[in-house]
């Protein structure tokens, strides 16, 4: 074991920029998880369509900033506002948040009267419909080719590595501001209102609270945060394609929330970093394995080879194993620590239950 030195890792191609990528994506997923935490952790709304708000934000940011179709060969879309960078960035991100919030309000309005388990099905289905719309309305979204010239703000002025650091810092700043605002909200009478609705809708109504409005407001806030995450994502990756917005995103965010701790903003961020870190770093398990073999003494390398011998030698084996591990992790957490790492067991006592 002692032979396994950081040098082996550092020799991986692009180690530093890879780490930065993971951290940036984790920051963006932290926002997604904070948004879902408002829905589920604080209000008890089982939202299985979170990816739709993320996508809505990403597409909004893209449409506001991509060049008009005339400047792009083979473009099917008819609309690109070409807001200049970096000045257009705040506008683009605010619009992404607003559209994410509006879509969440719309989806909420159609399904918020349903009981919690039906709400789960309805949000999942509506997000699926939204995904098909994105794919099929090519005049707006360029269909399955996507919008591939989303500007990276400030990229022209600096080297790729510098930009990666700068954008990471920017994401962290946005994350800190959002987490601060959300903590203020959840610690205020508004947060108390959300929690009461989570605990017993009947009782909240009997105490004069308009629970439908409370749930819609919760939907809007969480959706806006997810939309903002979408905007950040679009300007980071530089392209927006329907394949990026699959249900797996929603489930990754759920896993992050459950692991980190429901109804804890710290837990949401921790869970997102943990999960994205795990998901991304294990992408290169095979590379690590190869470099291990190379750097270990012959005896140890042979032993290792022997140990993995019974495993199937298939290219997709390791990648799919990662999801098995995530699944196992969730099962273990729910079995032995249902409140997650930072959650409070007392708070999740009644969550997701009907009155």
């Amino acid at each position, binding site marked *: 074991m002692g032979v396994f030195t950081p040098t082996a890792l550092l020799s991986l191609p692009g180690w530093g920029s890879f780490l930065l990528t993971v951290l940036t994506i984790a920051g963006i997923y932290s926002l997604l998880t904070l948004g879902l935490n408002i829905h589920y952790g604080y209000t008890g709304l089982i939202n299985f369509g979170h990816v739709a708000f993320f996508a809505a934000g990403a597409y909004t940011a893209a449409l506001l900033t991509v060049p008009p179709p005339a400047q792009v060969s083979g473009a099917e879309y008819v609309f690109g506002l070409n807001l200049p960078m970096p000045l257009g960035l705040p506008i683009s991100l605010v619009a992404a948040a607003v559209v994410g919030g509006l879509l969440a309000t719309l989806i909420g309005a159609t399904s918020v009267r349903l009981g919690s388990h039906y709400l789960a099905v309805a949000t999942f289905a509506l997000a699926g419909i939204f995904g098909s719309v994105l794919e099929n309305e090519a005049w707006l979204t360029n269909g399955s080719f996507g919008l591939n010239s989303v500007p990276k703000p400030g990229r022209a002025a600096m080297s790729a590595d510098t930009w990666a650091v700068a954008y990471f810092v920017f994401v962290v700043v946005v994350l800190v501001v959002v987490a601060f605002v959300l903590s203020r909200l959840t610690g205020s*009478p508004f947060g108390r209102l959300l929690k009461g609705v989570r*605990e017993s809708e009947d009782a909240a*109504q009997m105490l004069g609270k308009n629970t439908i409005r409370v749930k819609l407001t919760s939907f809007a806030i969480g959706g806006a945060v997810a939309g903002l995450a979408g905007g950040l994502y679009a300007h980071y990756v530089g392209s927006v394609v329907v394949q990026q917005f699959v249900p797996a995103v929603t489930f990754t965010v759920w896993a992050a929330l459950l692991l980190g701790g429901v109804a804890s903003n710290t837990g949401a961020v921790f869970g997102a970093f943990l999960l994205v870190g795990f998901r991304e770093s294990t992408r290169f398990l095979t590379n690590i394995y190869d470099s291990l073999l190379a750097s270990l003494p012959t005896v140890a390398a042979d032993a290792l080879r022997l140990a993995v011998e019974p495993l199937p030698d298939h290219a997709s084996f390791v990648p799919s194993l990662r999801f098995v591990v995530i699944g196992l992790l969730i099962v273990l957490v729910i079995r032995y620590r249902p409140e997650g790492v930072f959650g409070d067991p007392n708070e999740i006592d009644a969550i997701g239950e009907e009155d």
Partner: protein
Amino acid sequence: MSRDSSESDAAAGVTRSDSDAPLLEVDDVVKRFGGLTAIDHASFGVEAESITGLIGPNGAGKSTLFNCVTGMLTPDSGAVRLAGEDVQDLPPNRIAQRGLGRTFQTPKIFRGMSVRENLAFAARGQTGERPISALVRPGTVGSEEADIRERVDDTLAFLSLDHLAEEYASGLSGGQRKLLELGRVLMLDPEIILLDEPMAGVNPSLADDLLDRLHELNDRGRTILLIEHDMDLVMNHCDRVVVLHNGQTLASGPPSIVQEDERVVEAYLGGFENA
């Protein structure tokens, strides 16, 4: 009533004939569940500042009637009037805002919140319940919170729950949950309070305490309508009694008169007079 008999006699008799409509009026209400008629043309009134008992055998429709009155269920026909205005088509939160509070047969407390938060939740007109205000008006919200905290402390002391203020409500006993729910209703501070079996599962000494509290509230001008199975309690502490049987109002009036009513004795009270 036992405390101030001249006043309650007035409530039971003279004032009633002089005053206008009762504070709460159930007028020919029908509620069906599929083939079952749970409430069958029920009619009665609850006088302002009275303690009225709603009695009847299990399954008579008492809780269902509460649900119809509070807006949790919409009657199939008939009217519910609060202070003379029709409320049967309003949602529960609007009815609550008009001054009606209730508790449930099985308390619906906020288990994942502290006892203090449970009570604070119920305060009316909180500026900080609007997200924007919660963020941009910390001064107003802060001073309102201070006021609410004071009222919560008073209410907890009134219900002898002060030592549990910071506990999660999930840790409370059955009787304490009943008290907590009553406390929430007190924070709402409604004109009329509907209590669904407030004494059930509460130990006798605590129940006596609770009864004293209810009289105190009544003395402060609150109207109380309570469902209760304990006949002694109803006969000794209520100004008026409404008897529900198979969804119908069999009788209503002062306990002494209802107690003599032949149909009531036959249908429900049975050997009560021996008790």
